[in-house]
């Protein structure tokens, strides 16, 4: 029997390495998030989102949640951002009209965002030290006794949160079916249900092909 490693959560004192890693990850995550907002090209936004996700995964590692870091990278970078990029590819942004950001949005949105950020930072900095009386039932000693943070997460997930876990599986099934139904092509004989689709599509036998962008756009821009 090898000596059990004390577990990341245990070793994670507020030492110099952790502090340096935290500052790097925090600044890079927030910087990439800001980059995502100013990128004109949606593909650049998606790549910035990947950078944010990897750095937040690093923050999870510092917090002693290695499983969450891996799940984060697998689900977000592996599935969600790929889905974004596929959709960008399918929608073919070059054919679509340019995004127009009006001045009203800028002058209302940025001050509101700054206000929200200031509010959040003030509340965060003002959060008091957590007293021992309100601590939960998984101190680092218990976590390493269970065999690590992943085991502790599993113990909590499959005892206390079994019903929400099953609910999450139902949600994923419903979302999968919903996405398939929504993204399905509308068949020609079903087009009576979607008069605008029939109107927008070209008269020949390609029901899913949207018509020329200009007339439909003017009609919808009204």
């Amino acid at each position, binding site marked *: 029997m090898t000596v059990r490693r004390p577990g990341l959560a245990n070793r994670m004192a507020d030492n110099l390495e952790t502090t340096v890693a935290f500052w790097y990850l925090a600044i890079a995550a927030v910087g990439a998030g800001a980059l995502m907002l100013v990128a004109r090209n949606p593909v650049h936004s998606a790549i910035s989102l990947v950078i944010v996700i990897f750095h937040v995964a690093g923050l*999870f590692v510092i917090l002693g949640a290695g499983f*969450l870091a891996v*799940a984060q990278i697998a*689900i977000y970078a592996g599935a969600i951002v790929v889905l974004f990029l596929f959709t960008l590819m399918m929608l073919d942004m070059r054919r679509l009209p340019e995004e127009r950001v009006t001045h009203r949005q800028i002058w209302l949105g940025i001050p509101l965002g700054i206000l929200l*950020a200031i509010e959040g930072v003030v509340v965060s900095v003002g959060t008091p030290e957590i007293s021992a009386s309100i601590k939960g039932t998984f101190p680092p000693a218990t976590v390493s006794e269970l065999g690590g943070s992943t085991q502790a997460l599993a113990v909590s997930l499959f005892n206390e949160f079994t019903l929400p876990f099953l609910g999450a599986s139902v949600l994923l099934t419903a979302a999968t079916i919903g996405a398939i139904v929504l993204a399905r092509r509308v068949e020609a004989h079903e087009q009576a249900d979607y008069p605008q689709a029939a109107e927008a599509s070209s008269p020949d036998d390609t029901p899913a092909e*949207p018509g020329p962008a200009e007339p439909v756009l003017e009609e919808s821009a009204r």
Partner: protein
Amino acid sequence: MMLNGFLVVGALLFALGATGVLIRRNAIVMLMCIELMLQGANVTLAAFSRYLDDQAGFVLVVFSLTVAAAEVAIGLAILVALSRVYPVVNVDQLDSLSG
């Protein structure tokens, strides 16, 4: 104490995402900004979970990842279905229901 640092990161990511939803008009980028807000919430949940010696926050992050995946699948499917009818991604032009 580092808890405050993690909370500040979470708050800043959330504010950036909210700002993006307000100022960007591309529907796909708006969905990405919602993901950014979820990331901020996840950082806050995980930080509190770690410093409160409780696993509930980590479990909630798992559920948050699930909901994010479902939300993106549905949102992008709606966008694809929408783009067949109106080839528009600018949400300001999608005002057919506004009478």
